[in-house]
């Protein structure tokens, strides 16, 4: 991997983290922990892997992205705005009266392919998209990001059976494996392990990476095994980038106080300064 590319992605992701904290603090609502854990993956997809020109042109052979863990929407909106899908000033309307920037993605927002928010829907919808594109001979690829707590939904596993049945090698499912859901550690709520083996047993090409490390993410996201969909078990840190939020289930859906907000922004700015030095 080109170190300059990685460095540039790290800077971008740090800026989007600042956007996330700002949006949630000002709206006084949001899902900060999961947004911070998954924003690196979304950064890799939107700033390196996917062809945004085709997406903006709504080309039939465009890549398609589905945020199945719809609650991690703040980073998604911040990226879409930064990539020019809608004006960046609109981010300040997030979760406000009559906004189109709902707390879960809706297709009213330019760049959002599919409304999500109820868990367990993204993978089956992505399977349908990949199947449609496969049958049309489209060159596009479908990426879907799921939560790890979401893996308890039965519909995920219905789709996990369908992906390999239809040999959807144009489909990549990513599990944001931050190990925490709203009630605590995933293994205490509903055991997911051995998660990679479970996907392997269902017939997926499985890659295990650190999802906060671009040098591991980029090769995994650009992997394609003929005849098989790819599942990326992407190990991440919930609340990544803000020291006092990291690895705490409490930050799943908590809004920082004024003091915490300034502390978070200071930390992220310091990190950004270090990166851009």
């Amino acid at each position, binding site marked *: 991997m080109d170190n300059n590319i990685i460095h540039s992605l790290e800077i971008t992701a740090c800026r989007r983290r600042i956007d996330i904290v700002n949006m949630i603090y000002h709206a006084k609502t949001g899902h900060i922990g999961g947004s911070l854990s998954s924003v690196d993956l979304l950064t890799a997809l939107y700033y390196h892997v996917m062809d945004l020109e085709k997406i903006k042109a709504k080309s039939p052979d465009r890549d398609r992205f589905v945020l199945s863990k719809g609650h991690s929407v703040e980073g998604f909106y911040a990226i879409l705005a930064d990539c020019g899908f809608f004006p960046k000033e609109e981010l300040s309307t997030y979760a406000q009266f009559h906004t189109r920037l709902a707390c879960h993605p809706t297709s009213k927002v330019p760049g959002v392919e*599919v409304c*999500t928010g109820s868990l367990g*829907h993204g993978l*089956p919808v992505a399977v349908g*998209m990949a*199947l*449609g594109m496969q049958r049309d001979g489209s060159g596009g690829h479908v990426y879907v990001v799921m939560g790890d707590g979401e893996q308890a939904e039965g519909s995920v596993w*219905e*789709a996990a*059976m369908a992906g390999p049945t239809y040999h959807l090698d144009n489909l990549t499912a990513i599990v944001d494996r931050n190990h925490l859901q709203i009630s605590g550690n995933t293994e205490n709520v509903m055991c997911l392990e051995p998660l990679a083996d479970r996907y392997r047993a269902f017939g997926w090409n499985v890659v295990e990476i650190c999802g906060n490390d671009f040098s591991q993410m980029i090769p995994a996201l650009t992997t394609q095994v003929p005849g098989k969909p790819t599942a990326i078990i992407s190990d991440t840190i919930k609340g990544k980038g803000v020291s006092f939020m990291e690895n705490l289930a409490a930050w799943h859906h908590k809004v920082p106080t004024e003091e915490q907000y300034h502390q978070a922004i200071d930390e992220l700015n310091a990190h950004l300064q270090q990166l851009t030095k």
Partner: protein
Amino acid sequence: MNTSAKGSCRRAFTDTLCELAPIYPQLNAVTTDARGSVTLERFAQEFPQQFVEMGIAEQDAVSVSAGLALTGKNVFVCGPACFLTTRSLEQVKVDVAYNHTNVKVVGVSGGLSYGPLGATHTTVTDVAQIRCIFNMMVLLPCDAAQTKALTRQLAEMTGPAYMRMGRGDVYDVYTPDATFTIGKANQLREGTDLTIIACGEMVWYALQAAEKLSAQGIHARVLDMFTVKPLDREAVLKAAQETGCILTVEEHSIYGGLGGAVAELLIQNHPVPMKIMGLPDEDIILGNSQELFTYYGIDGDGICKGALELLKQKR
């Protein structure tokens, strides 16, 4: 109208899909190990590139259909109505209605079609459930000719809809060349004493009841309300104004279906005496459709009796 000939709605549906598939290459049929019960075998054989088997996974089937639609496909997702409208109700709400995807949810063997198979296989809450999801159209054709016409219209329309049909052969109400407008009731019989509004298989029984009433000098108007949503407000209000009382009959719970829709409209705009006939809020006994319609008083005789009771309330 031929009162003795019968036809199969599901066969009319799949024959129409087979006619349309070569004309509309984007037309897809998705099913849930139900190609037999939907009668999709021929479609699957002749149009494998437009056919998707999802196995016994209704949630997956509806979401996958939405995904296919998001790539430009015109999707009919078909399976037993009992499973497709309850197990995957959230997928219908979110992936079909909220996403406004071009997916037609087609439930077969609806109502009491499965008879002795028991409560797991009855579909008497589907209209109530789907009717209050925004963006969803609700259609219940009454015979093969109407099913064929509505299937064609659904295929030529972009956007979500739900259509329910039964399993067994049903009496022909219409001639094969009959035409229909979605959202417009079809008046099958003129009358001034009361109006019977029916949908699906009940339309034929409503006509039978009207015959019986006629023999007693009572003239019932009969409306085939094959589009339960959007309801033909104009036809219902006109019927209330001109005939003074309304009886609804449906192969559905007495709660929240066609009767509910008509009552919501009338009570707010033109209240008249009304009777809602359908299935009671209880564990339905076992039997075939005909036995059950008689038992629950929604066959020709039962509807006639209901009409006479209703007329006593008419001022």
